[in-house]
């Protein structure tokens, strides 16, 4: 069955073409802003969300980035970020803000569709770079909620092993492992959201202040919205 999907992207060409190029998705809404999607309120399995939605010409003051992501997850939507963003701490902030998936726009079309379907079906897609950060935080005892089995799964995934390979090593089925991975990523994103910049900097061996650019508190001031990637802990 085709998952029902809504697309939020300020680039009209992209949002309009996803439904045409990805026949495995049933795109019922393709809008330019989160505000518009909230207004429509479609019942969908997945929202595909671009991070950078503001543009000076048509929509300079719309919500974007982490704020947009939180607005959608706050309404109960499953969100998959679809962006060209490559900074790993920004991607980590998306996971911490509740994104069920983060997919790069650089990926091939068929792979992208496959990942959207995976997230829509209840799975999670966490960028490899973010998995690496999560492993460091666990190893450095910044996140301590993991069971031994969860640590084993994280160990394998951080080294790039596929679900099938990790499942085989742990003597479980692949579907079981995907379930474990979903629970694990939810748990990790919750824990990640609760960390301070200082804690993360210490765990990663960064200098104090290195993460302020990404992990600082967001501001309600619209002028500050250009720093849409800041995770903060409110909103």
């Amino acid at each position, binding site marked *: 069955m085709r998952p029902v999907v809504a697309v939020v992207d300020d680039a009209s060409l992209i949002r309009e073409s996803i439904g045409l190029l990805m026949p495995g998705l049933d795109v019922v809404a393709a809008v330019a802003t989160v505000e518009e999607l909230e207004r429509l309120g479609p019942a969908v399995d997945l929202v595909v969300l671009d991070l950078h939605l503001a543009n000076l010409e048509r929509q300079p003051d719309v919500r974007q980035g982490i704020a947009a992501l939180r607005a959608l997850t706050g309404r109960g939507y499953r969100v998959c970020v679809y962006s060209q963003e490559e900074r790993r701490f920004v991607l980590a902030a998306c996971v911490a803000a509740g994104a069920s998936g983060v997919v790069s726009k650089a990926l091939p079309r068929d792979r992208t569709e496959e990942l959207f379907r995976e997230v829509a079906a209840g799975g999670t897609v966490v960028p490899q770079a973010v998995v690496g950060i999560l492993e460091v935080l666990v190893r450095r005892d910044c996140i301590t909620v993991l069971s031994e089995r969860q640590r084993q799964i994280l160990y394998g995934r951080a*080294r790039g092993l596929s679900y099938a390979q990790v499942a085989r*090593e742990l003597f479980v089925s692949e579907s079981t492992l995907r379930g474990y991975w979903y629970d694990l990523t939810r748990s990790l994103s919750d824990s990640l959201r609760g960390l301070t910049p200082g804690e993360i900097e210490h765990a990663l061996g960064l200098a104090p202040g290195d993460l302020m650019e990404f992990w600082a508190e967001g501001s309600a001031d619209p002028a500050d919205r250009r720093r849409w990637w800041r995770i903060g802990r409110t909103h």
Partner: protein
Amino acid sequence: MRSRSGLWRVAELPTTRAGVERAFSYFTAGVRLGTVAQMVPAVQLGAARSPHEAGYLACWGAAALAAVAVSVVTLVRRRPPGTVVSVLDFGLACTLLVLGPLVLAPRDRFGTWTAFQPGYALSVIITAGGVRVVAVWAASLLAVSVCYVVYLGGDVGSEMTSTAVGNVLTYVVYALVARMFFGYTRRIARDADASRARAAELARREEERRAQVMMHNGIAVMRLLTEQGDDDARARLVGQAEVELRRMRSYLRGRDAYGADAEGPSVGLVPMVKRVCDRFADLDVVASLDLGTGLRIPAAQAEALERALGSLLLNVRVHARAREVVVHLDEGEGERGGWTLTVHDDGIGFDPASVTAGVGLREVVVGELRRRGLGVAIVSAVGEGTTVTVRSRPPSPGTGAGPGDPRTSTVSAAFSEAASPGPAFPDPAFSDAS
């Protein structure tokens, strides 16, 4: 030195065996000419007391001539006389012994050099190093002994019997000792030549291996440069080609980039790995190196690791058709110590049982890294990508991870291989590039 030229120039010996044969020729000539020298002072007295002076002189002359002839031929041929000459030599010695009673005064047969025949026969026995067939040698020795008994004639049973028996035993014992000496020395020479040949072959192979290791990545880069590609791809490859060019130049100048000393200045592992990954931006390499921050390794080890990592990523680029490559560095915890570098690609993989490793994996990756004291494991399966694990220090037995250790559970195959110095899996998909 001019005085050491010609026959004495040992350095020109093509083989140890040739040198030994030349030494035997000096020994033979020395013994034979020494015997003649011992015969000379008594010749006048012997002739005077001989019942047949002409016969005595003829025998003496034949012995002296034969000794000189054998010596000259031996020195010229640079080896002891062969079987035929030796048999003739034995024949002459026997003849002289048999004729002895006719040309010698009875009282001269023992203990004097006027009776040169027994001494001459002994010199022939000692220098029969060219007789290889045992039967010929034993028959010749027996013949000389029998002729000596004939030589003694009616004196057997007299008071000189014990001396006569002693002389026969001297023949036998000296013959055995000389044969053992020649044989054992020749065997040592053969072993030395075999060792020399093996050493030369090993040196040739080692040089070939070094050349393969040095050239492999450069050739792969050049191959990619000659293939069709856009300007961006070529620009990336040019950067890599410059790195490989520097490396090959160092090799041609006779020195490695970091020298062969594993105790050289240490190198930061994370910057080195990052530098290599940056050269392969087109591969979508995800480098998770945070767990190895601050790690340093010896320069020679870093050089080998940089080359191996470059070779692995080149192979991924050319063969693996991977969507993503993960390079993960992990400094061990607690008792495990050491560090682990994992390179995983989600490409087509290969069946390790059905393919042979190419130079890239076999030499540049596995061979070089193990020579630098690093453990290497390669795990792959068709359709499941390839995982290469490099460990700084294979865990000793009994200190391995327990069942609950995530390392054991998730990548146990890789780690068990890395822990043992056994052969790595062959590399299929990479064979062309290697």
